[in-house]
């Protein structure tokens, strides 16, 4: 199968600081790819290059078959993106948020109506359609933000720390949602610093100080490092880290 994301020696420098240092990997269609690392390891910078809002300093990368240097605008039509702080408009209602994101992704009016209804049903938010988002509990905001990031049915969805600041039960439910989405064929690229979440992923890469130090199935990584949990794997790898949180 042709990879949906291909990255070769991708590097990004800010002045003399190398945030992302020659990383290489491939992501296959329909897989949940976990992009793990401590805060400041370079995860977000790498992701921003892949979604076409930050130019790499050197290296190559293609997303959904498009080059990140020359075809960033094409990439944007085939991906969804959910940023760290959910990026919903709190002073708008649930429905208005749905209409806005569906609109800027260019969905036709008729399908916006259909999608909105289906989405509200799925999230059991039908009665809250006209509620301001700021009145929703955090877990619902998170689900809504995720649903909006994939409302245009992209080939790949990028999630930047989607579970930050959320309680364990809500996190578990959210991961169920991600797993379901991946089952429909969508590729999920997710960053996190919760190591237990790695178990939900098909494959994970672990980033330390801008470099990818390990990349495999979570189970194989545990075996390789002789560790009980992914957390232990991470601690073994992070021992040499220079950058702290």
């Amino acid at each position, binding site marked *: 199968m042709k990879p949906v994301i291909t990255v070769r020696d991708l590097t990004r420098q800010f002045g003399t600081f190398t945030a992302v240092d020659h990383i290489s990997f491939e992501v296959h269609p*329909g897989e949940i790819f976990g992009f793990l690392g401590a805060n400041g390891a370079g995860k977000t910078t790498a992701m921003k290059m892949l979604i076409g809002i930050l130019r790499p300093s050197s290296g190559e990368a293609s997303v959904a078959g498009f080059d990140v240097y020359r075809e960033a605008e094409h990439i944007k039509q085939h991906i969804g993106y959910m940023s*760290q702080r959910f990026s919903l408009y709190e002073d708008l209602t649930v429905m208005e948020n749905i209409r806005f994101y569906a609109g800027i*992704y*260019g969905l036709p009016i008729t399908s916006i109506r259909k999608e909105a209804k289906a989405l509200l049903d799925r999230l059991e938010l039908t009665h809250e359609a006209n509620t301001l988002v700021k009145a929703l509990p955090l877990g619902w905001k998170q689900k809504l933000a995720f649903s909006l990031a994939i409302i245009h049915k992209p080939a790949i969805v990028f999630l930047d720390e989607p579970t930050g600041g959320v309680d364990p039960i809500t996190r578990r439910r959210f991961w169920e949602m991600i797993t379901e989405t991946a089952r429909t064929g969508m590729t999920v690229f997710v960053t996190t610093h919760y190591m237990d979440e790695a178990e939900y992923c098909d494959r994970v890469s672990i980033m330390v100080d801008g470099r990818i130090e390990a990349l495999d199935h979570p189970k194989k990584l545990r075996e390789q490092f002789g560790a009980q949990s992914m957390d232990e794997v991470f601690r073994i790898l992070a021992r040499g880290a220079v950058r702290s949180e």
Partner: protein
Amino acid sequence: MRCSASWPEAPSEVNNMKQFRTFVYKEFLHIIRDPKSLLIIMALPIVQIIIFGFALTNEIKNADIGILVTEPDEATRQLTERLDASRYFNLALVTDDMAEAEQAFRRDKIKLLVVFEPDFAHKLEHEHVAGLQLLADATDPNTATTLRNYAGAIIQDYQQEVWGEQVLPNRMEVETHMLYNPQLIGAYNFVPGVMGMIMLLISAMMTSIAIVREKELNTMEVILASPLKPFLLITSKAVPYVVLSLVNVSTILLISTTLLDLPIRGSLLLIYAESFLFISTAISLGLMISNITDKQQTALFISLMGLLLPTLILSGFMFPIENMPKPMQVLSNIVPTKWFFIIIKNLMIKGLGWESVWKQSLILLGMTFFFLAVSVRTFKRRLA
């Protein structure tokens, strides 16, 4: 295989017009959901016009004056009546004692004292020269000068009437006309100034805040990662504030003409067109500000200090630029409000046409393109 059959391809060519409408609609929602800010924006011009029109006026009405006359006669009585009848003056003191008059000055009871020399009428009739002295409280030099001029004019009038045609030989007659604004109404000057100030503030400040807010909320990244073109993002942000600013222009014109009796002598269409041009300049300034900072607070602060202050000081509507030192005069040229101020004065008050404002309009247009170019450059550098 990139994605399974149940996932249709995202539309490859996104309809820009529809995105634009969606975005503008969302911006209006933000404004409606924040009625307090909306009220401030809409009430600001009304409050400003009232403050400048009634409180900060440098016109003088009903200034208290005194008359010092030791031997009242027909002529002094008539002159006193005339001064009192004028709407500029209010007769607060008539005395024959200089000490009392001085006391009144010190206690701030009078601003101007008219002193008639003894035997005034007789001297005027028989010797053709009668002495009359004007003493003004010059702690406020502007007021003193204005009072002297008003009193002088009334006395001149009286003299003309009494002497009629029997003028002395070889006399020069000076006739002064205050062009465009014969009654020296302050509103003629400050209304164009307030218009410029408010439009600059609302357009630049609100646009910069609206954009920086998206950065603070992290929604900016999501929008940048969407197929929406950055150019559309910026235009959509500007549209609501263009509309609000044009509403403000209408409010200002309406209260100025009804409440302050201001004329609109030139073309209304041209006034609106020039306002639109100036709003564009202000918005491009707001864009530049939004690129400098990631915090709404900072954007607000830069707008206030960087735009309001220079506008008040250097646009020429509060302090005449001609009286400033040369470097300040040169500096005033980069203040956009200065040019808008000239444009609106020429169109509204002087009733001139396009031929009188095309140079200023070109300068504003040039500034707009300059600010836009700088904004686009800095915007791209952020992403690169």
